């Protein structure tokens, strides 16, 4: 059963740390999380602090350099991730679709579903 890493990308200009989460959204998210956990599909998931808290460590030309957040040059940044295990990509996509449908209609959220290479 393949595993999939889903990177949830958000626009930090739209979704700031002050963004209010509608109670209905939180309730639905809770129900979804319970469901996907109980299905034995969810292995790990978390949201990330916003990019001002982050640092990129780069290796280039044999040298290390650091870039502190916020990463303003990219409109969309990874705001969370999930690691799920299901039978095939179609199942992973279905769970991802359900996750996104919970969000308020005016938000822009994209979820990049990537299969993990099993070594």
């Amino acid at each position: 059963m393949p595993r999939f890493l889903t990177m949830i990308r958000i626009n930090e200009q739209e979704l700031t740390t002050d963004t209010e989460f509608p109670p209905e959204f939180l309730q639905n998210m809770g129900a979804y999380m319970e469901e996907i956990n109980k299905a034995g599909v969810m292995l790990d998931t978390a949201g990330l602090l916003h990019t001002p808290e982050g640092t990129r460590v780069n290796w280039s030309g044999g040298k290390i350099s650091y870039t502190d957040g916020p990463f303003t040059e990219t409109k969309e940044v990874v705001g969370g991730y999930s690691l799920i295990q299901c039978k095939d990509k179609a199942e992973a996509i279905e769970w991802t679709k359900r996750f996104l449908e919970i969000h308020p209609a005016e938000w822009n959220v994209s979820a990049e579903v990537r299969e993990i290479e099993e070594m």
Partner: protein
Amino acid sequence: MSAAQAVEAVFRIESARIIAGVARIVRDVGIAEEIAQDALVAALEQWPESGVPDRPGAWLTATAKHRAIDLVRRKETYVRKLAEVGRTLEDAPPPAEPADPDDIDDDLLRLIFTSCHPVLATEGRIALTLRLMGGLTTQEIARAFLAAEPAVAQRIVRAKRTLAKAGVPFEVPYGADRDARLSSVLEVIYLIFNEGYSATAGDDLVRPALCEDALRLARVLAGLMPQEPEVHGLAALLEFQASRIATRTGPDGEPVLLADQNRARWNRMLIARGARALGHAGNGPYSVQAAIAGCHAAAVRYEDTDWPRIAALYARLVQLIPSPVVELNRAVAVSMAEGPEAALPLVDALAREPALRTYHLLPSVRGDLLERLGRPQEARAEFERAASLTRNAQERNLLLRRAARL
């Protein structure tokens, strides 16, 4: 992704819950599964035309439940169907409103307790559980167990018929036999895992897909019965065992012993999940086995293994499930904790166990002890004997290689 693929994905995600919900209405898992399949066929016909509904799972469940209630209402048909399987009609059907999540959980628990019912032969329990709870096709089950598809289909049909004939109620057992029934559920999941973990026959040493199916069942059960320590114990055991799967075989599928496994490749996430589950485990046999597996997982290098603790845990396990196989494992742990001379008498005492007469690991362990005691001639004979007893081609090659080295 085609519409049909999307429909099938939804169905696979929902199928256990649909079957469980319908079974509560029709009180028969065989009929429930047929009705669930009917709902899938309806979806495959309608959705590509009308588009996938907003809540596809709810659509499938509602469709299946409507059919179930129809079936119950059309008593003549129902009675005939029941007569075919030798059941009598229960009274009015229960309502089929969308259940709240707790009800769905109850339905799923009923389903797993029913498919693992002791009235069924072990093979039937395994096949039915994988089919109904795991959502595997008959073909997938046959492939996993290296069995012919018609034989597996027959197993499933027979199991459904047995349940119907015996009038097994669709319920979660309470009271006196609850523990025994739970043990049966845990055992079925454990057996599925083990068949994948150390294939009893064939050319492959492991069939990881089967391990993953069992692991998922264990995780699902832990979600459904969070108050049962042994359920967490089983989940922890399987998470730990699964963390090593990738390293248990070499490039040519040959077995790699624990001492030689590349621990850098053990799956840390599964080990962490195992440790979390172990925190909720208890003192039962699966929990103790999980603690042993956790000890191995905690050792960054083989030399760091806490053998005295593992030997002590095996001593506890022997009291919980007295069996020659567990005693043999205890002997291995003792040999590592105290040396081969301390373990040889324990192994020799097992030589007279009828249950181990054809168990290849007994001569294999004895050969290992003799080799460490500097008795190569005797060791070689034991390895050769072990090789003649195993049904797994990869194991046999390993044992013959060990014999040839001496």
